[in-house]
């Protein structure tokens, strides 16, 4: 625990800063943590469980706090900075007009940061930059995962619809697919929508089938 060290005595080595990452998404939190350690910040704590958050912050007594902006505890967090004498006074990362671009980038990425009053912005700016890029990378990854999941789901539906057509109309696989594609084009719909209607129709007509 580094609590109580006066700010003035700190050397300018990045590793000296005590960084706290608060994120209910533990995977994202560890991605940030790894990034910080790689950048030479050895003193990193992660909180992903919000129980007793105020008490833990007082124990950790961080110089820099990185938090996801979706976190409903931000109002509480800001209020303990405002009133508490037990914690060094962190303030919002963005204190002047020149920071407008970084505020915007941070809010876009879904991250916010607080630093202890008196700490030079230049010393902590790399932390925020890293957090922003990792937050962005994380959402990109998530989006791709969702898309892949969606595609997989679609392919399954199309395969089932193809099977139905092959059985009920004696078509080959290629013919079944071509029929669905033609129908989709004619009705200005997606092929997966046609597949879905086929499956629904089949299950309504014959609840005994595997559709």
């Amino acid at each position, binding site marked *: 625990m580094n609590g109580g060290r006066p700010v003035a005595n700190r050397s300018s080595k990045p590793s000296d800063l005590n960084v706290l990452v608060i994120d209910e998404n533990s995977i994202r939190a560890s991605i940030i943590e790894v990034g910080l350690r790689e950048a030479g910040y050895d003193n990193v704590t992660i909180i992903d469980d919000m129980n007793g958050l105020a008490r833990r912050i007082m124990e950790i007594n961080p110089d820099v706090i990185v938090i996801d*902006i979706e976190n*409903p505890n931000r109002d*509480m967090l800001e*209020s*303990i900075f405002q009133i508490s004498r037990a914690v060094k006074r962190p*303030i*919002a990362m963005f204190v002047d007009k020149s920071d407008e671009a970084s*505020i915007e980038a941070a809010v876009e990425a879904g991250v*916010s940061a607080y630093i202890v009053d008196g700490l030079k912005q230049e010393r902590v700016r790399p932390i925020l930059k890293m957090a922003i890029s990792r937050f962005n990378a994380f959402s990109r990854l998530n989006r791709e995962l969702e898309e892949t999941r969606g595609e997989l789901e679609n392919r399954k539906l199309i395969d089932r619809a193809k099977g139905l057509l092959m059985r009920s109309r004696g078509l080959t696989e290629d013919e079944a697919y071509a029929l669905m594609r033609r129908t989709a084009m004619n009705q200005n719909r997606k092929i997966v929508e046609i597949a879905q209607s086929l499956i629904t129709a089949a299950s309504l007509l014959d609840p005994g089938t595997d559709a």
Partner: protein
Amino acid sequence: MTSTHQITAGFLPLLDSAILVAAKEKGFAQAQEIELALVRERSWATIRDRLAVSHFDVAHILAPMPIACNLGLTAPAPRMIVPMALGLGGNAVTVSAGLWSEMAECGASPDLDARSSGLALKQVIDRRKGDRLRFGVVHPYSGHNYELRYWLSASGIDPDRQVEIGILPPPDMADALTAGLIDGYCAGEPWNTLGVLNNGAHLATAKAAIWKSSPEKVLGVNSRWADGHPKALAALLQALYKASLWCANAANHLELADLLARPAYVNRPAEDLLPALTGLLHTGGGEIRNVKDFFVPNAKAATFPWKSHALWFYTQMVRWGHIEHTAQHQQIANDTYRPDIYRNALRTLNVAMPAASSKVEGALRTETPVGSSGALTLGPDGFFDGNLFDPDDVDGYIAAQSRS
């Protein structure tokens, strides 16, 4: 159809987002050629941040918060104006079953009377040994914090020394009560109703009893956006005014509760949202009481942004050490609320307007017809302890409060 105005509004999932939700869902925005996007957030800090970076043009926001932003009490601090209030009342003070039974022993009446419940709480605190009682509110610069503190101190309880007041997200309040982390909280709906129904809590008093006809959420507007889009803002105020009329109509309460219950909005059962709309509140122990003017969306100039409301919040910021009192600070608070914009925007709707933009809070003891047309009724607007707030004597009010 393309709309003339695209407006993005942030909101928190609370009952008093009703006017914004109705404006979008009941077509009032569309009728003004507004494409209104509503974005739900989970903290006031994020609403403020997204206003600052212009993700939001306007937001459903705590009435004192735009003043705090303009006074530079928050960072980032977007420059903001308040051209409209989003209703009067809507909060309650909820206490644990244990604390309520002690208060009842000390004479708290179950009708949410602020005076008797406050005096009872004082007796409980005076005879109590051990830890201080703990209360939760949603934000330091909130009506909840200031009305809870007003109620406590007017009841002879020092809010800084005799109790502890902490900040919690509203959805966590009731669970914190059950877990014994707090003994009571002041929050908006549906969190009081849910605390009573699901956690055995009891209502102690209501905002409508502490300060009658008082504002809770307002429309906070990024002033840069307002300057660049005067037509869009006027159109929005007209849409919101019409929506407030719709929300106020008892015939629409069931539909409004259903709208607000949707996953995109408050995402809680409609039956738990209805009490605040009808004023028939679950007060605890299976009782239901009719609380007069619990939440007022339109009547009594409920959407009018009174300068006296802004200045009262300012006096409380000074009182609790949030800001130093100077003539300049007072001016900033005064200028944040913009009844002039409200009047101009609603002129064509023939809305009955108050003649003044400021009033002595507590001067109206009963419902009083005002205005030339006589179509508008104001009040009662008093504080429960009978004290008046004269916005022309802010210095005197602040001095008197620092002595008490």
